[in-house]
C-alpha cells in the first residue's frame, strides 16, 4: 500500500501574455509506507505542483494518483500539509492552533486539547499552550505547524520547504526533530527542499527533479536518516565520505540541469 503516482502530467493553461506551462511531465513515483521521500530541484521544477496533487488541491491534466487503493479526488485528513510559513492562525493561541484540525473534524474541546497537548509535548512546546503564535520564533512556529499536522494522525505528511525560512542552526535541529518524529510515528513523508544536504540527510528516497518540463530525472535510495536514527551524530553522518560523494554527484546533476536549461 501507500501512494502511487501514475503517469501524471500537469499543464497550466496559457494566460495573458504567458504560454502554457508544462509543470509536470509523465511523473511516476511511489511513496511506500514509512518511506521518507524527498523531492529536490531548482525552483520552478514542479515540486509544489506535485505536492498540491498529492494533497488533492489540484487534479492532474492526465494520469492519476492512488492512495491505499483509492483514487485521490480532493484534500482529506489522511494527508496533512506543513507549509513554509503563513499557515498558522494568529487569532488562536498555540494550543488551539494545534487542535485546529481536530476542531474542524468536530472533536469536542477537552478531547482535542488532550490530543493537542500530547503532540505539543512531542515537539518540545510544553508550557507554550497559551502563547499567541505570533510571539513565537520561526522555529517554534514551524513546530506548531508540524504538531497541528500530526494531530489528525494522517497517513502521509506533506511538507513544502518546511525549514526554508529557518536559520542554519535551528534548521539542523528541526531536521533531527522531524526524523525522530517520523521514526516514532511511522508516517510516510513527502518532503520538499532545495538544500542538497538536507535532502540527503532526511530522505530514504531522493527524487531529483528538473524544470521545463518538470520531470523526475534521478532517484536515489539513501541510508543516512537510518544511520542517524541508529545513533550516529547528525554532523558525523553529514561529514562521512559516503555522504559527501553522493552530495557531489547530486550537485553535479543539478548544475548540469541548470546549464542545459540556461
Amino acid at each position, binding site marked *: 500500500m501507500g501512494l502511487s503516482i501514475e503517469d501524471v502530467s500537469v499543464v497550466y493553461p496559457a494566460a495573458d501574455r504567458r504560454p502554457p506551462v508544462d509543470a509536470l511531465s509523465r511523473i511516476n513515483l511511489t511513496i511506500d509506507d514509512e518511506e521518507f521521500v524527498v523531492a529536490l530541484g531548482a525552483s520552478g521544477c514542479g515540486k509544489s505542483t506535485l505536492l498540491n496533487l498529492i494533497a488533492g488541491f489540484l487534479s492532474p491534466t492526465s494520469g492519476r494518483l492512488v492512495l491505499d487503493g483509492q483514487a485521490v479526488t480532493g*484534500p*482529506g485528513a489522511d494527508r496533512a500539509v506543513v507549509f513554509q*510559513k503563513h499557515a*498558522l*492562525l494568529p*487569532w488562536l493561541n498555540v494550543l488551539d492552533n494545534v487542535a485546529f484540525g481536530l476542531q474542524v*473534524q468536530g472533536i469536542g474541546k477537552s478531547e482535542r486539547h488532550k490530543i493537542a497537548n500530547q503532540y505539543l509535548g512531542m515537539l518540545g512546546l510544553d508550557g507554550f499552550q497559551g502563547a499567541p503564535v505570533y510571539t513565537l520564533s520561526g522555529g517554534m512556529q514551524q513546530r506548531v505547524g508540524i504538531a497541528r499536522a500530526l494531530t489528525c494522525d494522517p497517513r502521509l505528511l506533506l511538507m513544502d520547504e518546511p525549514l526554508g525560512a529557518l536559520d542554519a542552526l535551528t534548521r539542523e535541529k528541526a531536521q533531527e526533530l522531524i526524523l525522530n518524529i517520523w521514526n516514532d510515528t511511522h508516517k510516510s513523508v513527502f518532503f520538499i527542499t532545495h538544500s542538497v544536504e538536507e535532502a540527503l540527510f532526511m530522505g530514504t528516497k531522493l527524487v531529483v527533479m528538473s524544470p521545463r518540463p518538470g520531470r523526475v530525472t534521478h532517484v536515489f535510495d539513501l541510508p543516512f536518516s537510518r544511520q542517524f536514527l541508529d545513533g550516529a551524530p547528525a554532523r558525523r553522518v553529514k561529514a562521512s565520505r559516503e555522504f559527501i560523494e553522493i552530495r557531489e554527484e547530486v550537485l553535479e546533476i543539478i548544475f548540469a540541469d541548470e546549464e542545459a536549461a540556461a
Partner: protein
Amino acid sequence: MTERSPASRRKAPGVLARIARARPTKPGEIYGVPGQGNTLWLSVLSIAVLLFVWWLVTAMGWVKPLFVPAPMDIVTKFISVWQTGFTGTPFLEHVAISTSRVFGAFLLACVIGLPLGLAMGMSPVMRGLFDPPIEFYRPIPPLAYLPLMIIWFGIGETSKILLIFLSVFAPIVLGARSGVKSAAIEQIHAAYSFGATRWQVMRFVILPSAMPEILTAMRIGIGFGWTTLVAAEMVAATKGLGYMVLSASQFLQTPVVIMGIIVIAFIAFAFDLLIRFVERRVVPWKGRM
C-alpha cells in the same frame, strides 16, 4: 542637489542638503521608516495654538462675534443649552436622537453590509450582481439623492435613517469584501487539508482574518455616518444635533452652531477611540503575522 561639477562637490553641503539627507536613527527606531516619531506634543501644541489664535482674534475685536464668537461664549452657551435645552428640547435629547439615528443606520449597515460584502468576496455571482449598483451610487454625494429619498419615503424618520445608512453601507460592504482576501492561501489550504467544508473555512479562517479590515471599514463607515447626519436632519427634523446646528444658523446664533459642531466632532471622536480600543482587543495580531 543639482550641481555635479567636481569643484562644487567639495563645498560644505547646504542647509537643504543636510535636511534632505537621512540620518542614522536612535536605537529603538528603525532606519528609514517613513514618518516615524511621536506626535503627541506637537498635537497638543497645535490645539493650543489654534485656541490661542481664536481667543486672540476675538479678544482684540478683529472679527465680529457674529462671525467668530469668543471661546468663552461657546462654553457659556454650552452650559445654558445644557441647562435649558434648545428649542424646547433638552440638550441630551438632541444628542440621544442624533446618536440613535447614526447608530441605528450604522447597525443596519453592518447587519446587511457585512454579510453582503463577505458574500461578494466569496462568490463571483454575488460580486457580479451587486458590484454595479454599489459602485454606481457610492461616489454620489448624499445631498444629491436626498430629494429622491424625500419623494420616495417622505419626510419622516425613514428617509433620514436611509440617507445615513446609504453613506455607511458602501464602505462597510467594500471593507468586508476586500477583507475576504486577507487570509493567506496557506491558511485556507491547511484548513481544507483537515477536511474542512467550505463553510468551515469561511467561519474559521476567512472571517477571522477579515476582522482587521472589517473593523477599519466600520471606523470609516461610522465617520461617513456622522458626516451625513446634518444633511439627514435638514429634512423636517425638529430634534437632533444636525437640526440644532442648522436652525441656529438660520437665526445667526453662531455660538450654538460652533458648539454643535464641536459636540458632533467629540462624539464621533469618542466612538473612533472606542473602535480603536476594540481593535486592540479583538485583533491584537493585526499586522504581526
